[in-house]
């Protein structure tokens, strides 16, 4: 998501040479912490702010406003050598929580499953935990199994899945390439299996999708306001598409 922020900033500063914007990565939490501590004007996140964080911000005199600026689908990927091509959310939950450990239990070959996850510094990890492993139910006690490998970046997951026919992982749509096979996912047994893609994410039929947000104080500076408007403009949304995320509306 840092890449998207940088692309927006580049274009925005080209059009408004008097404005200087610095983009820093580090994860959604880093951005939110900076917003709370007033060291940034805009925080870019791939998850919604937690109540606790909003409270902390209020105590510091910051009143964050949430703006949905783009969407992102999370693709489940395996090696092209793996015969599996579709899974339900429940099966995914069982795989990542360690209840299913062999591919034959979901109709594949008799080999063990190597599950790969992003590490806890990633907004994607939290999103996947809440919406897939816990199946969207906050009270659900399921967790990532202890032996799920925690990878430091999406690229690391791509490398490992591409070279390991027993591996399964999840990545943003932008990271899909020829060396990986994405899995069609169904919300439950009665629902159809849907492949991730721009259209299925925008129309909401693909079950593992999320919003990307900008957070700013309710009284942002003029420049911050202009930047947010820019992100939502046709030009800004075009950049969203170029960066392999999914625009709010079909362009």
């Amino acid at each position, binding site marked *: 998501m840092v890449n998207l922020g940088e692309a927006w900033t580049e274009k925005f500063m080209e059009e408004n040479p008097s404005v200087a914007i610095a983009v820093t990565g*580090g*994860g*959604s*939490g*880093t951005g*939110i*912490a900076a917003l*709370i*501590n007033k060291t940034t004007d805009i925080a870019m996140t791939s998850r919604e702010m*937690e109540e*606790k*964080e909003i409270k*902390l911000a209020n105590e510091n005199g910051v009143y964050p406003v949430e703006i949905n600026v783009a969407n992102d689908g999370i693709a489940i990927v395996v090696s092209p050598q793996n015969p599996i091509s579709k899974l339900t959310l429940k099966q995914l939950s069982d795989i990542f929580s360690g209840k299913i450990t062999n591919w034959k239990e979901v109709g594949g070959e008799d080999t*063990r499953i*190597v599950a790969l996850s992003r*590490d*806890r*510094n*990633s*907004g994607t*990890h*939290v999103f996947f*935990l809440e919406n897939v492993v816990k199946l969207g139910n*906050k009270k659900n006690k399921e*967790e990532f199994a*202890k*032996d*799920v*490998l*925690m*990878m*430091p970046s999406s690229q*690391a997951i791509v*490398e*490992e899945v591409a*070279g*390991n026919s*027993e*591996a399964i992982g999840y990545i943003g749509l932008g990271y899909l390439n020829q060396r990986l096979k994405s899995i069609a996912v169904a919300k439950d047994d009665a629902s159809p299996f849907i492949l991730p893609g721009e259209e299925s994410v925008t129309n909401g039929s693909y079950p593992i999708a999320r919003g990307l947000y900008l957070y700013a104080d309710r009284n942002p500076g003029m420049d911050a306001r202009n930047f947010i408007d820019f992100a939502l403009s046709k030009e800004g949304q075009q950049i969203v598409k170029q960066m392999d995320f999914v625009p709010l509306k079909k362009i």
Partner: protein
Amino acid sequence: MKNRYLEPLIEATIFLSGLIVILFVVLIFVFLLRESIVFFTNQNLLEVLSGKDWYPISDPPRFGFLPLIMGSLFVTLGAIVIAVPLSMAAAIYISEVSPRRFKNILKTGIELLAAIPSVVLGFIGIVALSPFIKNIFNLPSGLSALTGSIMLAFMAMPTIVSIIEDAITSVPRSYKEGALALGATHWQTIRRVILPAAFPGIIAAVMLGIGRVIGETMVVLMITGNAAIMPTSILQPVRTLTATVASEMGEVIHGSQHYYALYGIGLVLFVITFFVNLTADIFLHRKRYR
């Protein structure tokens, strides 16, 4: 005239610089303690240190440090077991056997190893070493404690080699001459006289190597798999103390228990490296005053 004022001034400046460094160490320790005290007052220390579950973002969160401590120990032990024999052999060769003109080339070469950025070693580990380890041992994934250990051994070797080499070189010449005069062969002299005399230096080298390895972050984050299991074999993935702090600090909710728990990990790491370095220091000094 000029020197009378200048010299005390320079002395005072140097003295002050030394004091400032110590002050920084103390301040870092105080800072770590202050941030982690919040965590340790809310949690039972014994439960944290013996807890086997590391689920910091669950509800309720579980902060068991044991898998992380074990992870660090496995990787460090593996690295030391690989690095120490190789370093010993290299140091003995450089200081006792190698012809003079090779000596400098070898020393520079080994020290150059320390100049490789750890992220580069990590990258080599992912693309070259990890698939190799996976195939040899038929593992589900090449991201394992062993992979990390091998890469870390490379990082520890320059330190260990140069300190052992120093220790061997500083064994008084008369010891060696005495042994040879008594009819001992070169190898007997090395094994029975030089190595025992250099022993405290060797221990110090090993300890400093441990200190170097246990604090390393980038390599282990990239190639050890980071799964917080209780490891029973070096072929399993592990999650180390350093990798946990590095990867979770970015996304942690400020002011939460998890945030303070990461400082708690930092404190545990600080205490471990402090004692490792202290041991190294004791051995280095023992050598000097004997």
